[in-house]
């Protein structure tokens, strides 16, 4: 479960000429991108540029109107987010992800709870196993939590984000997609999420994240793709670009 990194050059996920229109509105026009294992790709662009539309088309929420998606080189089509998740593409939603009243373990295993036999015959939830797996998973994300039996409502926004990511990590997500994961957080919490993305990268997972915060993008991404009114305005290696250039791509000109 630890080693997800293949050859650094083999693309995990490839998006080719993806388009999506809503009636007369073409939100996305022939956008292409590639994610390799252990790579963090940032999606940037002005409001309405098509960033959310792109990741929803990739994660099975929208059916693309054109283009194709390849996973490990094989063309795939996801009829639902569930199908994308089953293939290892996990989207981290800001609010929808967690049941606040359950523990970290309860959330990680939600819908797939492990059972054990009490007294040799009575099936009961295996809370210890859930707690241990949760502790281990969170430790791998560098989150050390004292009480595994507390509901996640006791945790901060960044910690809850970590739990949602932990859930994806536990179930072996290979590509994690995050739409503005730091937007609702305070500065220390934002840093924590950025550190989390570094952990995911180190574990050989692919990460796509949307952000309006160039500082975050430059702190963690390997590449940046800038969208403008549904088209790709440019793609740059972070090491070879600057804030100014990215802003120029975003506004055009």
């Amino acid at each position, binding site marked *: 479960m630890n080693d997800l990194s293949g050859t650094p050059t083999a693309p995990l996920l490839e998006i080719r000429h993806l388009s999506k229109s809503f009636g007369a509105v073409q939100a996305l026009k022939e956008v292409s991108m590639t994610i390799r294992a252990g790579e963090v790709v940032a999606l940037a662009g002005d409001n309405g540029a098509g960033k959310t539309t792109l990741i929803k088309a990739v994660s099975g929420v929208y059916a693309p109107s054109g283009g194709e998606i390849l996973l490990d080189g094989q063309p795939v089509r996801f009829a639902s987010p569930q199908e994308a998740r089953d293939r290892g593409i996990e989207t981290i939603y800001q609010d929808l992800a967690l049941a606040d009243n359950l523990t970290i373990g309860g959330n990680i295993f939600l819908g797939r709870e492990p059972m054990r036999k009490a007294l040799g015959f009575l099936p009961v939830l295996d809370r210890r196993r859930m707690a241990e797996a949760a502790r281990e998973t969170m430790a791998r994300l560098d989150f050390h939590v004292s009480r595994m039996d*507390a509901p996640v409502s006791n945790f901060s926004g960044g910690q809850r984000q970590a739990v949602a990511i932990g859930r994806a990590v536990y179930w072996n997500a290979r590509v994690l997609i995050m739409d503005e994961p730091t937007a609702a957080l305070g500065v220390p919490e934002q840093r924590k999420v950025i*550190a989390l993305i570094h952990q995911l990268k180190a574990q050989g997972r692919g990460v796509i994240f949307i952000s309006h915060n160039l500082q975050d993008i430059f702190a*963690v991404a390997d590449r940046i793709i800038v969208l403008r009114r549904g088209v790709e305005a440019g793609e740059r290696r972070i090491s070879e670009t600057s804030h100014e250039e990215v802003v120029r791509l975003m506004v055009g000109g």
Partner: protein
Amino acid sequence: MTSDPHIDRAAPVAPPADHGAGRLTLLQRIAKLRAWLFLGALLLFFEGWARIVYGGTFLGNTYNLQSIAIFAVARLLLATGQTFVIISGGIDLSLGFIMGLAAVVAAHVVVWANPLMPAPVAVLVGFLAGVLIACIPGAVNGFLVAYLKVPPFIGTLGMFGVARGVAFLLAGGTTVPVSNPVLSALGNSRLFGSIPWTVIIAAVFILLMHYVLSQTRFGQHNYAIGANPQAARRAGIDIRKHLFRLYVLSGACAGLAGVLYTAQFSAGAAQAGEPLLLDSVAAVVIGGASLFGGSGTILGTVAGAFVIAVIQYGLVFVDVKPFWQFISVGVVIIISVLIDQAQRSFSGGRQSE
């Protein structure tokens, strides 16, 4: 991983220490146990009263305890079903008349079966009929709420009317008396001469429901759905199927309450559960559940139901006007909810927006 220069740049303030979240504050502890604290306080009060005013004992008198337990049976069973429903974020207003319907049907069936089969079998058949009949309005509730997306308050309010009408029609507008020796023995005799059989049956059932809520996937999913239905759906839980089963279960709880009523009184009555519906909601709330869903336990509800039963019986015991019951139960509900809200806003625990 800390050798990665990015991390030092991005997160210089976060040592991998204990993040400290998740400790229960004192207020949270009190809020969790509030029903038991109420119960303890009430029992102390009545015990003190008995000693000072009557020169006797309240708790030491098994008659008092038996009476409270018998009195609590139907409230406990309705409140058990209600606990499941309220945790899921719903409410079941039809439980009282589902109980009445089950009581009437059980009585009719035992009367019908009496000449056809041995007395114990007739009782068994009557009980099964009562509980199964109760599952029908439960299933309709479930269908309305789960598949037709009718708000639980409205759907079960409709069923409140339907079950009420059907129960009175079946009872012919009166009570349905039964004469069956096994039935009356079940309703009135005691194990070891002290524990009423109806209480034992209710206790075993409630223990089973406690297991279902706290130890099974059904229970776990019930909590998740009450807190965040989207998260539950995203996790692959079939919410509609769950809700359907949930309302059938709560109907069955009311059905059991109905047939035990028939045993206790050797008669079925459509209005058997009429005054108990609001008590069931009150027991759940006093027991620590939130009407917004997502929280509550069977053990808390048991304490809540006993708080109500002890108030109602105890005030008769101290011989004040019965109207004080309503006031006392009302005050306990309000205090209980205030504790809950204080706990939410003052406990350092953060709530998501």
